[in-house]
């Protein structure tokens, strides 16, 4: 295994919870609090993995499949993303479709696990998650497709590789729209404000967190870690589009890691300065993301 691949997997496995910690820390700073330690998400996950479990007697094997599929699909999706311009461990023509559909697979089983509990609250969260992600999917696809059209390739490694800086030079406006659209998708898919509030205390207003109310112990640990990895995977794409610098050198890893931390801070800033949208307005935000990507396509392909 080449040293670059080692760095890739080390970042994928180790960095994601740090992003959550940094976003929380940023929000605390805005609120004038000290906030939990930066590494709190790591402690939480380790603690959860060592705990015992409780299962509802309504649930079946589907309930346990939810966390498993959610985590595996998120980690598998990171295997397709070129971090900081370095080639991804796995790349082939058309892998962008696999990237998007892996998340869909994870979502399918997370939703199924929520419905498996027979709880009204979890059913509500599941319905919201399913409906909103159905709208986020075209936005993500259109964004990836305009990148594909601009770079003339259908693999994430080539689309987001070293040539991206040149694409900025001749199709900068389109890439700007795409970056904004991807950022909205990132916020929606990872249940951040303004779509969902990960720290709210009222189940009625939640989306993602209410789906996993009945999970506990190692299963919840899988879910938390999977959610962090998913944020990392989508974040890596946003960061790469926004910061297209770097060659295949070691410095690129540093730029990438710094940019990821910047992204986490940006998420924290957005969460601090915005309120959550009313549920009926979320579709408007997602349709806006679709339109932005669509205009990106028109700009690239005209």
């Amino acid at each position, binding site marked *: 295994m080449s040293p670059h691949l080692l760095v890739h997997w080390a970042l994928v496995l180790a960095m994601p919870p740090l992003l959550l910690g940094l976003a929380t820390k940023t929000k605390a700073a805005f609120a004038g609090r000290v906030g939990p330690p930066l590494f709190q998400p790591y402690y939480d996950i380790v603690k959860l993995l060592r705990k015992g479990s*409780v299962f*509802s007697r309504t649930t079946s094997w589907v309930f346990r499949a939810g966390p498993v599929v959610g985590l595996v699909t998120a980690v598998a999706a990171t295997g397709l993303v070129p971090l900081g311009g370095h080639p991804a461990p796995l790349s082939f023509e058309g892998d962008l479709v*696999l990237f998007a559909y892996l998340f869909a697979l994870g979502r399918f089983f997370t939703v199924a696990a929520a419905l498996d509990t027979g709880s009204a609250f979890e059913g509500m969260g599941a319905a919201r998650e399913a409906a909103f992600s159905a709208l986020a999917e075209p936005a993500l696809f259109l964004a990836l497709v305009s990148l594909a059209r601009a770079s003339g390739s259908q693999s994430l490694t080539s689309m987001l590789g070293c040539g991206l800086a040149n694409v900025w030079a001749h199709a900068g406006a389109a890439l700007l729209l795409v970056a904004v659209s991807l950022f909205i998708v990132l916020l929606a898919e990872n249940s951040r404000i303004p779509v969902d509030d990960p720290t709210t205390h009222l189940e009625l207003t939640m989306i993602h967190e209410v789906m996993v109310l009945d999970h506990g112990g190692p299963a919840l640990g899988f879910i938390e870690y999977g959610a962090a990895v998913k944020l990392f995977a989508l974040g890596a794409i946003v960061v790469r589009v926004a910061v297209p610098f770097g060659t295949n050198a070691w410095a690129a890893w540093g730029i990438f890691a710094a940019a990821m931390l910047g992204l986490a801070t940006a998420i924290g800033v957005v969460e601090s300065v915005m309120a959550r949208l009313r549920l009926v307005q979320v579709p408007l935000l997602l349709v806006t993301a679709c339109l932005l*990507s669509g205009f990106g*396509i028109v700009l690239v*392909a005209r």
Partner: protein
Amino acid sequence: MTGLSLAVGLLGLSGLAAVFLNGSPRLATGVAALGAVAACAAGLWPAVSVLTGGPPLAMKWVSAGAFGDFELGVDPLSAFFLVPLLGLGGVTAAYGREYLLAYQGRKWLGPPALFFNLLVASMVVVLTARTAVLFLIAWEVMSLSAYLLVSFDDELPEVRRAGWVFLICAHLGLACLTALFLLLDQHAHGLSFSAFLSAPPMGAGLSAGLFALAVVGFGVKAGFVPVHVWLPEAHAAAPSHVSALMSGVLIKLGLYGLLRTLTFLPRADWWGPTLIVVGLSGALFGITLALYQRDLKRVLAYSSIENVGLVTVGLGIAFWGASRNLPAVAALGALGALLHLWNHVLMKGLLFLAAGSGVHGAGTRDLERLGGLVKRMPHTAAALLVGSVAIAGLPPLNGFVSEWLLYRGLIGGGSAFGGAGGVLSLLSVGVVSGVGGLTALCFMRASGVALLGQARSDAAAQAHESSAWMTGPMWLLAALAGAAALFPGRLAAALAGTIGQLFGATVRASATAELSGLTRLGEVGFWLWVALGAAWVALAWLVRAPAPEVGTWDCGYAAPTSRMQYTARSFSQLFEDLLPSALRARAVLRAPRSYFPPAGSYATQCDDPLTRGLYLPFIASWADRFARLRWLQQGHLHMYLLYILVVVVLALAWVGWTGGVPP
């Protein structure tokens, strides 16, 4: 050809035997099912051999008088459709026997067994016919036997209505097809397909007219929007093994007819974009309606409309790429369309068989009365879940492979077509991915509400698992769906002959070049299975300590009941509210009024918006006009004799005026 003749003979004879043995239902259905399975096995061999590069088969039948010789043959295009027909036909015949036996003592089981075998046999003849007359006869036999099967539960008014709608639509489609073949006959001076192929070049106007007739006439069977209205009714009403065969194969024969007709016409530039638009609108409409249906089988039926739409999009890419001389794009579209068609046979066959088993066990198709089946019917539930994941196009199952090809074709076309065509192709990716997201939503809802949580009715709480004769076929189809995703390269290699016949040798060569990418995708799927298995084992190890079983937490409420669960309707409501009101389910509210109100009621009706908003008002307005002609119908014999005399005199006058009957 011997194998296929044997298959048709066996199907007919065993079906007739079933009618004569009607007195003993177990024997009758057994003989018919055994005959059907044997016939499908016998017919599968020649079809597979043609598909894998063997020489095409041909046969000439007795001279049929004025209609010329009846020719039959199997070329790669026929074989491509024969393989799923015979495969799914055998599987559903085995399942159907057990399904029908539940009606033992209440209904005659011999006739439905005959009609099923007749349906399979007529579809074999449709696919092998090489003359228009034989094709149309077989097409009509197919429609009639399907009608007789759809009306199986004819004591229910909605089943009788579904049967009538099917019959009327089938004949309106047949009228278009008759016109199509008559026009072709006039142009080619012959009714055999070889005459159509060797006819002199056709004008653009005639060709466009024939294209439109084929899209409408065959589109009725295939379920193109807006001529799809029979499809959800008939699929919900028919016995489940018949729904599986209809959704799996019968509607695909509409696509066969369209493709067969297109081989007779000179290829035009605009076919591709037209088919893409037809396909996209069908896919979007189908999945939108599937989202909020209450009836599990109507969900599946609308999803078939969506999937036929996706196949049509793929065909559109293929024709567009071929006409623009972009073989790589055309190959992706063709591979995607044909592979998706096969995959849909597996997935939808599986889903209808599983839904049938659920209906059989729980006694209802209503999602709001199902629930909790995963505990009571573990095999059926697993099969329905596998089918749902597959049809949502999710890896690592087979639906993903073909949707992946469609996406690649559309994105590739967007780069290669350039200009407005490129933008259309790229924006189509957005529509297809939106359809994909909605499909996932739809099947999360259908499978989640039907299978998971608590039983929503006493019937579902008492549900019992079906016998191995019904779960076996489901597991077979589920295993095939998994295998098709692991070895897509080998599966797609069998499509080369069909692609060559439809789109030419250069497209075929490009398609062969794509096979390595497909094999690679199969390997990725394999490693995804491995990773899922490993994570499953890891979680099982982490929770190995005996876990206490408690009630669902439900935010502190101690006694959640099944009526507190999220319903199917509320699950889809968030999205339904975004739809234009014409497309939504109709709410019928009788609100209680006055100081001492009588009972109020609230009901939702998920009928088709086109039937409701377009066809029924149209038919009603014409019915009014025709009612004004009722005075013609006097009920006196001498008046009718007078009408006949008037018509004969007019006809003679017309013949005399135009100068005699043409020879």
